[in-house]
């Protein structure tokens, strides 16, 4: 089972390595500044609640991408970490009365633990089996969320207070909350960027491209895979917890397997194994849901068509294609 062609557009071959590295870091610097400027300007042009939704999903997709694009592991059950964390955060903020940042942390921590347990189980198999196992485990979480008392069953947890950040700054205003969410997103995103470009990330890519060789080089690939799984689950939890505070609710939608499918779609559209792909993908998919809402039943069909088109014609995703044009990993 090889996973080479999943996002193999990572490296620009044929140039001396230090030139590439210097060119890349300059490019990344420019792109990050553009991203930050964009984040600052956006709420003045667009509806902040919509933007916050995009950011939550962008972080979620980036977390999945870390696992899929750089670890070569397709999880079809990431909704479990995203959704369950949003339940825990909502519960923490509403019932325990924690401040929003602590509530989000509680959700993230839960996702990490969950990721550790499920990851340990799932990485026993590879490829398609891995995908099916993560899906089945996520379905287990779905049933737990449906039946346990604290999640409120079908009604979900409603009326979660946005609260005061650090107990001081009230987050009722959409704009204020937006900047907090943007900061969380940026933190998660930079963390992922760091991970990818660390020695750990290098090993990860080596495992993705050729696991037997990585093993023969003396790497304990299982531990690497588990570590990236836990990181990815935790970041998905961070996104889910943030979403609970933004929308002031947590519901079954976020633990359902369709959510797992949606986040894979975002990553696929934007470009697996690209840094900026998940952001682009989530902007597209979330806008699609938002602006096509009046088309009703057509939304899932359009999503399905996008899936098929991407797989058939566009496997590198939007950023993947761009990256090939500029001959730089993006």
């Amino acid at each position, binding site marked *: *089972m*090889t*996973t*080479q*062609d*999943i996002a193999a557009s990572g490296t620009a071959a044929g140039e001396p390595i230090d030139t590439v590295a210097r060119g890349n870091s300059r490019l990344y610097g420019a792109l990050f500044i553009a991203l930050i400027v964009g984040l600052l300007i956006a709420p003045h042009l667009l509806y902040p609640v919509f933007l916050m939704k995009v950011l939550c999903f962008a972080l979620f997709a980036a977390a999945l991408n870390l696992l899929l694009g750089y670890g070569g592991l*397709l999880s*079809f059950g990431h909704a479990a970490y995203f959704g369950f964390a949003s339940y825990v955060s909502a519960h923490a903020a509403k019932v325990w009365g924690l401040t929003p940042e602590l509530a989000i942390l509680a959700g993230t921590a839960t996702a990490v633990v969950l990721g550790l347990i499920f990851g340990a*189980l799932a990485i*026993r*198999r*590879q*490829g*398609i*089996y891995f*995908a*099916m*196992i993560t*899906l*089945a*485990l996520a*379905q*287990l979480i779905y*049933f*737990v969320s449906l*039946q346990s008392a604290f999640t409120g069953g079908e009604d979900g947890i409603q009326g979660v207070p946005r609260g005061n950040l650090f107990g001081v700054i009230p987050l009722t205003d959409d704009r204020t909350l937006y900047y907090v969410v943007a900061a969380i997103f940026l933190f998660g995103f930079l963390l992922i960027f760091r991970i990818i470009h660390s020695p750990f990330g290098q090993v990860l890519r080596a495992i993705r491209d050729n696991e037997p060789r990585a093993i023969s080089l003396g790497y304990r690939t299982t531990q690497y895979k588990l570590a990236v799984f836990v990181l990815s689950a935790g970041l998905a939890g961070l996104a889910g917890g943030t979403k609970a505070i933004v929308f002031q609710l947590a519901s079954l939608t976020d633990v359902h*397997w369709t959510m797992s*499918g949606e986040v*894979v779609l975002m990553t*696929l559209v934007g470009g697996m194994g690209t840094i900026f792909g998940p952001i682009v993908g989530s902007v597209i998919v979330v806008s699609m849901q938002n602006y096509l809402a009046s088309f009703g*039943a*057509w939304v*899932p*069909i359009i*999503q*399905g*068509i*996008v*899936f*098929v088109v*991407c*797989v*058939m014609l566009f*496997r590198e995703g939007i950023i993947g294609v761009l990256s090939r044009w500029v001959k730089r990993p993006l």
Partner: protein
Amino acid sequence: MFELLGVSPQVLFGQLLLGLINGSFYAVLSLGLAIIFGLLNIINFAHGAQYMMGAFVAWMLLQYAGVGYWWSLLIAPLVVGATGIVIERLFLSRLQNVDHLYGLLLTFGLALIIQGVFRNEYGVSGLPYGIPRELAGGNNLGFMFLPNYRAWVVVAALAVCIVTWLVIERTRLGAYLRAATENATLVGAFGINVPMLVTLTYGFGVALAGFAGVLAAPIYAVNPNMGADLIIVVFAVVVIGGMGSILGSIVTGFALGIVEGLTKVFYPEASSTVIFVIMILVLLVKPAGLFGRAA
């Protein structure tokens, strides 16, 4: 009179039998998945949608052409299988040389489209489909009332599974198939049209899903979402059984149906999760699945 944990043997027998009936659906569906996986190496996420299509085609045949249950049992799988062949030719055949995960993603997208189109056309409340007159009513077995139709489901499912197994294990065609599963290039070198074999195999696997759909139509609501959640359970069944053998997928399907049936008596709250729990246990003990070959 012995009682087991407060459950009388009558009830227990009844539940075992009902479990076997549900297991029939798992077995036919996981068999289809296993055959497709064997040759194409992809997990057919659209299997649930194709199961749903089987039920809908049966309903349409009745509604628009006046074709009854028995003919539907033959025609609907053929129709669904034919759509499968089109899908294989149009899409899957072009994905042979890329990572198999793309096959999963593609069929996932197809499932969304198929389910969405049916939802648009027929709504979601479901459509009525009656039990064929010949199988109406039932027999009192002493320990339970067994509707004739349920008995038929077990017989039909078992028959299809056994015939399929015999074809694969005992015929020349099956031998080609098994050989191609092992080494497609080599089989191609012997002058066998492997792409054709692949196409037909996918069509057949999908037709099995359609067959299960027709079987389900009279007892479950004919509804665009009827396969969406079922498919995940079948995935778990497949993980438990391991994809190693055709027989394995059949046996696991029936066995898990029975286990689920027993859970419904002793601890009904867990009956939707029991298969997933078993999956976890199997993964811990035997990562390749009960019948699987180690990867």
